[in-house]
């Protein structure tokens, strides 16, 4: 992951995080966009899974299940953000 790719991903996922916390329906589209930004990068599978979870909770899911799904998506995003931030802070990756 280059620093430019990491910046793009961290910025996208920050938007996703706030949208998920606020249970804003824009979270799904934002996560889909973040997943495209992460495609082929090491956090890509994490963000792709988060985007999939966001789609699953978007319908008529029972409230408890939707809440659990949202928390899983948040945790997946957290893992991806932390990995991208580590690149920006100097761990691994080309500059």
């Amino acid at each position, binding site marked *: 992951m280059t620093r430019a790719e990491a910046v793009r991903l961290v910025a996208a996922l920050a938007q996703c995080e706030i949208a998920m916390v606020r249970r804003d329906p824009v979270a799904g589209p934002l996560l889909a966009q973040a997943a495209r930004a992460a495609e082929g990068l090491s956090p890509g599978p994490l963000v792709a*899974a988060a985007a999939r979870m966001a789609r699953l909770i978007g319908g008529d899911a029972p409230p408890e299940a939707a*809440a*659990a799904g949202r*928390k899983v998506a948040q945790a*997946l995003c957290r893992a991806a953000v932390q990995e991208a931030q580590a690149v920006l802070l100097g*761990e691994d990756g080309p500059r």
Partner: protein
Amino acid sequence: MSGRLWGEDPGLLAPLGAPTDELAALERDLVDGLGLPETELWDAHAHLGRDADGHALTADGLLADLDRFGFAGAVCFPANEPGADGQFADANRRVREAAAASGGRLVPFCRLDPGMPWDGELAAAREAGVRGLKLHPIAQRFRPPDAAALVRAATDLGWPVLIHAGYGARPLAGPIQTLLARAPGARLILAHGARGDARAVVERLGDRDDVLFDTSLAALPDLVGIRPERLCLGADRPYGEHATALQLVALAARVAGWDADQLRGVLGGNLLRWLA
């Protein structure tokens, strides 16, 4: 690993059609790749009970989480459920009972509202062997200096005091400095790496021996600017979970260049010294 996935019950995820096998593999890969040293893992930050916002965790659930990720134990305290008395009496009692039944793995902290009468609940906690105090200035709506009398009382008992310092926190550096000045000898654990006001807090309080920062749901850029001797691992169950909590500390260690002893301190040793 079995049990929860990314902190959540697979039984709740199944009705969504969630790809549980894939989620389990992602979590396993994340943790397996961290390269953490063998050491006694302790979690400085876990809530038990049911919060007003719906988050919930039982003692059995927390112990299962600790087992799954190889933790020796955790500091635990009530969620935001102050109850009819407004002073967390029932919630604190349940935490004490859970701790007493845990064989020493759950270390109980008492949660109190400094804006309410607290003498009786503090005495009950002391009698029951509680080991620390938890304060939440946002949920209980107070400024840190306004808790000075309660923090002095906790300090007289030899307790550390864990204070929420994450999202929603107002400016913290000055108020925490004032609190420390009004409660001499107090030892404060600032939760979430003080991410609510991290730059100012670390600049003004980062070198003090009477301040620890827990890493629960903290930000990596904040943690790498804090000396590892001043950090202790936390997960903030049930808001956070242990996989990304461990990942955060592992990444901070690599970025900041901590040696193995420093990392072991963050993973448990620093907290245990404060609980002794």
